[in-house]
């Protein structure tokens, strides 16, 4: 549990947000994250994030499903208990294709969702600090991490100059925790400006 100080700027239009992101980054500040009510395309690139490799993970899970199905069924039908089904071959690959396909999809989907939840640290009961309640409604909330050298007044002025409708400074827990939101309110003691 590490608490850090953040400068927060809220924008109400993505057209204002993009230039602001650029300005803040050019000025050398480190943007922790921008919280948006929906997926704003291109924002990840504007923030300099790399592409996610979640789909690669999905491919690996899918292949795992395929191999599981092929190896399990062929072991069962040729080694463990070779059933004579109308004298047909024990290794009946064409008849297994439906199940092989279904297991591929099942493994890929379940694996990807679990990986997604793990990477984003999402689970029932997980709590995280919310910089602004309206980040899931209509505001684009930029949180900038402060260091010892950060001049918060300069930063606040920069945000306002770039069209932020609301700004403040918050000391917040960076990580997630289990618990109630009452606890969160105590943790997120807002620093008066």
């Amino acid at each position, binding site marked *: 549990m590490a608490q850090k100080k953040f400068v927060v700027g809220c924008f109400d239009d993505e057209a204002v947000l993009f230039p602001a992101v650029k300005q803040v980054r050019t000025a050398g500040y480190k943007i922790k994250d921008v919280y948006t009510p929906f997926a704003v395309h291109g924002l990840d690139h504007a923030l300099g994030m790399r592409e996610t490799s979640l789909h690669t993970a999905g491919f690996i899970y899918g292949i795992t499903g395929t191999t599981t199905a092929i190896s399990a069924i062929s072991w069962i039908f040729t080694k463990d208990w070779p059933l004579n089904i109308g004298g047909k071959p024990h290794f009946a690959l064409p008849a297994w294709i439906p199940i092989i396909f279904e297991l591929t*999809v099942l493994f890929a989907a379940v694996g990807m969702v679990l990986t997604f939840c793990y990477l984003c640290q999402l689970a029932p009961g997980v709590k995280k600090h919310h910089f602004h309640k309206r980040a899931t409604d209509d505001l684009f909330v930029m949180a900038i991490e402060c260091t010892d050298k950060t001049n918060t007044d300069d930063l606040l002025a920069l945000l306002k100059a770039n069209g932020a409708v609301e700004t403040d400074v918050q000391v917040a827990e960076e990580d997630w925790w289990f618990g109630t939101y009452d606890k969160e309110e105590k943790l997120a003691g807002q620093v008066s400006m």
Partner: protein
Amino acid sequence: MHIKYESQLREPLVYGNKDYHQVTEDILRPIETKPTRLWYIGFSIAVLLLSFGAYSVYREVTYGIGQWNLNKTIGWGWDITNFVWWVGIGHAGTLISAVLLLFRQGWRTGVNRAAEAMTIFAVMCAGQFPIFHMGRVWMAFFVMPYPNSRGPLWVNFNSPLLWDVFAISTYFTVSLLFWYSGLIPDFATVRDRAFTKLRKKLYGIAAFGWTGSTKHWQRHESLSLVLAGLSTPLVLSVHTIVSFDFATSVIPGWHTTIFPPYFVAGAIFSGFAMVQSLLIIVRKVFALEDYITIGHIDLMNKVIVLTGSIVGIAYLTELFMGWYSQNKYEGYTFWYSRAYLFSPYGWSYWGMMACNVLSPQIFWSRKMRRNVFVTFFMSIIVNIGMWFERFVIIVTSLYRDYLPSSWSVYYSPTIWEIGFYVGTFGLFFTCFFLFAKYFPVIAVAEIKYVLKRSGESFKPGMEGIEAQPLDKFVHDNAH
């Protein structure tokens, strides 16, 4: 560089002068206000039907399959008819959310959430029938392959019935994951607007601690896209495999290669009809006409007339092959048992033809496609027709096949068979009423994503861009 507005030629996806906050307000209103009297009445009826269904199932489990009118010849009757019917209905949701996502159809955002919910509930209903048809339902887990002390006696991986077990359970799981991963950001919106502690707690649990971080959204987009890519062949595979239950057998009327595409088209057809029935009510009751627009209804009716006609072609192809093959058993099934109006089940065949092939042709007219009352009426007709289709396939093929000595007497269901079917309606609508009350019925985040491009009040912004000469437009906007 991407164009911010969509051409004015395209119908807006969101009507009215909205901003992001207004979208949240409009869609979450049903969740944040007390349910109406109508909701309570509807919910009570649904629970009542569910209880009748539960009692019917109780009788079947206690006294055995003899509670139904199935016999040695007609081993599948109403139960499997209903199973196939519900699975078919369950196809529209994932088709809308997955296939239309891959094809970048913006209009899916207005209807995908409710359609996916419908899919999940329909598959839940479908699953009841084969499970309770087993008779000794407490041994239902025998269909799963696991090392056991009976040999081990494995399931038959070469059997279409086992393929079905895998197909339906995979379809249910993947649809549920797809639906829920889309719900997480919307639950977060409900959580952050919560006005009581209990709401905040419950929606907080449901939202998994979603914050709306850009990195999370990036992964969320990737997840949705890959799940859509996986679900697209999955949707097609599920009803294909259901059709294999019939097509790989040697029963005249079942043993046809046309079944997979014909079943898939029929599934989409009935699924879209059910989506229409539900959404026409939802948009009216929750005042969501700005989001589920006449344009949406029009587009779905186009899908209905297309798939209805594909199904019609399939019926005619079957009839043709019944004659062309010169196989007397096929000929008897298609030309006597089905197409001859005065044969014992001729009524069901012509009911099917009238509901599925003839009546949807009305949707070639734009005026009819955009008429809410006609659409609602037609959506019910289509679902009745699709039920007839499954009944025709199953019962007319079984009751008279190769051996006249095993020909059956006229099959009609008992009250407990009907009760089971009615009960699944109860289950479906109980779930749907709870969904409509406690879940955002439209994907809030996705509507916000299309709002500034396709919203009615943002369309005029396109005027300047559209007035540009072509060269300049291409220069500015081409990748």
